[in-house]
């Protein structure tokens, strides 16, 4: 990535040698990442991040061919998907949002029920960015296609990619969003995998880059960085799951001892290894977050709104958690360098920082 930051002035769409060098780098990045996802290079559309990829998948599919196609999605999706669905709904596309169970899981039967002859795209995330719950994507994809064989199945795999084996065939999806910064790559770059044959209306119109699916000068440096990060992620995944899993195990064991009434918000058998999402009964998360920040523990509560206030998460609401209970929930995430000792130290800090709030 560095050479393209230092002296990568050439536009990859030009025809001189510098431009060719940039273009080659871009196409190599495309091949590399396509290979990791089990896709064809031409099925990879580089975007300006996960949000754009989600927008292109939802709005692009719903509005393809000048139609007003139907969208089916879940109530726990990232705002990038939910807001895109709202956007096309305002334009006249029928949108159905299916609910989830107590654990945030989408039921395949709910998908079959929601999909009809007008549905063109079904979007459920691979794993939830807040709770870490892993959705049964392959089963949901089967259910969707059983109800309407022509639907395109999209998944936002942004949160899952770092720790889950994510290939387009394993998940049986037609579209998949990734964001580089979630697996050690640069911010502001992502991709949408688009299975050959899936028709999309572009969201960005212009010079026709990315086979007309996404206009705009290529972020060569970003794409190269993303591909390198993706390669490293896939090679490191087994180790990541083992060490982060052990760190989280130590963290949670210690936390549970300190807070016996702790409630877990994600199912133990279907959650990302790098997430702990819990409710501390009786402790308001806003106060806990400030105290933890002061103590050097970075946690989060739901998502931050534009002003920076912690709001009640739509994910927890969809799981049937009351607003009061949602305000007692905190999320801790573990990155690739986290070791067992870090997890234990964090739990110990949390205990001393929050115990008098119990």
């Amino acid at each position, binding site marked *: 990535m560095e050479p393209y930051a230092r002296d990568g002035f050439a536009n990859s769409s030009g025809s001189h040698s510098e431009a060719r060098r940039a273009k080659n780098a871009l196409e190599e990045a495309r091949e590399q990442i396509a290979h990791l996802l089990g896709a064809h290079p031409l099925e990879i559309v580089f975007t300006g991040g996960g949000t754009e990829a989600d927008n292109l998948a939802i709005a692009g599919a719903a509005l393809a061919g000048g139609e007003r196609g139907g969208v089916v999605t879940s109530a726990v999706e990232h705002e990038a998907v939910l807001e895109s669905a709202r956007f096309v709904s305002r334009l006249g596309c029928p949108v159905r949002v299916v609910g989830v169970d107590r654990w945030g899981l989408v039921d395949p039967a709910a998908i079959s029920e929601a999909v009809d002859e007008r549905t063109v795209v079904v979007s459920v995330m691979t794993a939830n960015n807040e709770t870490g719950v892993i959705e049964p994507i392959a089963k949901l994809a089967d259910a969707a296609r059983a109800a309407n064989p022509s639907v395109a199945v999209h998944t936002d795999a942004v949160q899952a990619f770092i720790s889950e084996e994510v290939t387009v065939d394993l998940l049986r999806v037609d579209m998949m969003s990734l964001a580089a910064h979630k697996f050690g790559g640069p911010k502001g770059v992502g991709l949408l995998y688009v299975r050959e044959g899936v028709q999309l209306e572009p969201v960005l119109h212009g010079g026709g880059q990315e086979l007309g699916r996404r206009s705009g000068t290529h972020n060569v440096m970003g794409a190269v960085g993303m591909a390198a990060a993706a390669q490293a992620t896939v090679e490191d995944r087994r180790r990541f799951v083992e060490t982060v899993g052990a760190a989280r195990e130590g963290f949670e064991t210690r936390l549970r001892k300190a807070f016996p009434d702790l409630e877990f918000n994600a199912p133990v058998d279907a959650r990302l290894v790098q997430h702990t999402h819990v409710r501390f009964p009786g402790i308001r998360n806003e106060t806990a*977050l400030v105290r933890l920040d002061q103590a050097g523990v970075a946690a989060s509560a739901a998502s931050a709104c534009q002003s920076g206030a912690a709001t009640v998460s739509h994910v927890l609401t969809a799981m049937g958690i009351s607003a009061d209970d949602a305000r007692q929930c905190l999320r801790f995430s573990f990155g690739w360098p986290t070791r067992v000792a870090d997890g234990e130290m964090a739990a110990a800090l949390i205990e001393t920082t929050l115990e008098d709030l119990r």
Partner: protein
Amino acid sequence: MKTLVAMSGGVDSSVAAALMVEAGHDVIGATLKLWQGPDGEAPTAGCCTVSDAEDARRVAAQLEIPYYVFDYTDDFRTGVVDPFIDSYLSGRTPNPCVECNRTVKFSRLLDQAADLGCDLLVTGHYARVRQEATGWKLLRGIDPHKDQSYVLYMLGQTELARVRFPIGDMTKAETRSIAEQLGLRTATKKESQDICFVGVGDYRSFLDSQTDEARRSGIIVDRDGVRLGSHDGVARFTVGQRKGLGVSLGEARYVTSIDSTSATVVLGKREDLLASGAHLGRVSWVAGPPPRPGRVEVKIRYNCPSVPALLDPDGPTCTLLFEEPQASVAPGQAGVIYRGEELLGGGTILSAAQ
């Protein structure tokens, strides 16, 4: 001392934070998100806008203090906005700043400050707190044009022990000049005057947007009960109002009283507005026990000088007899009682004494 500074994104609280940092306190800055649009978005006008929070955040960054945004929208809704609407619907004239201080800033936020291990809560109000042998005193701000002690009358000994107003000793001009010296981005920011959650437009359109009841029509009568016209909601009127009455009688008429039960607005002449005193309810005394009866000064609305009166406290209520009759004693407004510079307490105006 560990201190929580409530930062609105305006110049006053920015300077308050800067002064606390300068004095060597361990300062945390916080902005309260009090109000939001129907879809949970931050308002674009009024206060609590994204740009206000951003200003506060940038000032906090410049002062190198941690900064957070707290979501108090639920508390603000139940403690301030709902009572505001109810009050207008019942023909009274509420003061939402007083209710916000009572139910949000100096209760919820004060509790949260304690939870965060802060010994003090600081705001950018123009008022002074002083500790004397007899206890904590609340004094008017030095700047007579900016004095905001009126909206702080509900503070008692427990609160004052933990609250500081560092700019109460300064004039607004001094505050601005400190902000300029420190290069704070809020130095020249314009003053917010409006009711923060009403945003653009006046409170009447806000009420219309919140409840259909605001448009319940009724009649306008004179003091003998003679019908003068009709109106589309008592919430549009406030005692003392002269403009926008919707009736023309050749000479100036004022709202002298409002009966929400029968949706009747009564008009009278200027002299009919004059009241010899006021009854206050929900009374709170800074010292704890009520002051001895006697001569005080009372302020019956925010933008109005205090006037001499005789105070007669009586449990949770009190009566004030003005030295000179006063116009525009509006039920719902705060009546705030001073002796010289010192704020003794106050309450909500229940009725005028004729």
